[in-house]
């Protein structure tokens, strides 16, 4: 996805990635989140991205490393460092005994019923906050897209 020079192709690869991720969520017994992933990400956000890409129709971007060979070593070092850190945390940290899989409970936890109950009882304040955030973002996007600065 990040190696393709054409942004449309890389956006389509990102859609593929989101769909695969929805499958992973299903395997992990998170049915509601899997459906939300397909609808919100693969549907709404990626349509938005593709719309903007085709609206702007950007010029061909130049190959990055041909201009700046020095930066390449730096970037590779940062990324390898972070990757090693992540792998270390995942594989070398001691697995605790409490993390055994409780399949029955996790199947129950992923249903829409349970998520809805939790969301409208314990988490009603963050839920309302997320609603206001989306409203603010919509208004902000409209203002930004309309305004012409100088």
């Amino acid at each position, binding site marked *: 996805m*990040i190696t393709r020079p054409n942004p449309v192709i*890389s956006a389509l690869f*990102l859609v593929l990635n989101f769909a695969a991720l929805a499958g992973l969520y299903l395997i992990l017994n998170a049915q509601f989140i899997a459906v939300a992933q397909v609808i919100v990400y693969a549907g709404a956000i990626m349509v938005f991205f593709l719309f903007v890409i085709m609206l702007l129709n*950007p010029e061909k971007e130049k190959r990055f490393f041909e201009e700046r060979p020095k930066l390449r070593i730096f970037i590779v070092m940062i990324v390898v460092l972070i990757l090693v850190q992540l792998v270390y945390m995942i594989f070398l940290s001691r697995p605790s005994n409490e993390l055994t899989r409780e399949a029955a409970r996790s199947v129950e936890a992923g249903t829409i019923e349970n998520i809805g109950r*939790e969301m409208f009882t314990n988490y009603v304040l963050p839920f309302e906050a997320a609603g206001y955030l989306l409203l603010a973002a919509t208004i*902000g996007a409209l203002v930004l897209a309309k305004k012409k600065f100088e």
Partner: protein
Amino acid sequence: MFSVGIVGVLTRRNAIVVFMCVELMLNSANLTLITFSSYLGDVTGQLFVFFVMAVAAAEAAVGLAIIIAIFRNKLTVNIDEINILKW
């Protein structure tokens, strides 16, 4: 997946592709949250992922609006040429 996102943010010069890589990193964090939620049999992680999705949608909307506004002014989405914040 997170590392792939970082590579994308650091190497790509197209602002839209950089945004897509940020989405990729958010999704990798979501995946770990879902995994913990599933292994602990707890619903909190999935709720958290739901809120992350809401914030990501808002962020994508505002970010793309900013990109469109910049494109109107400078006629480019190459982040090397967008340097109006530089002093």
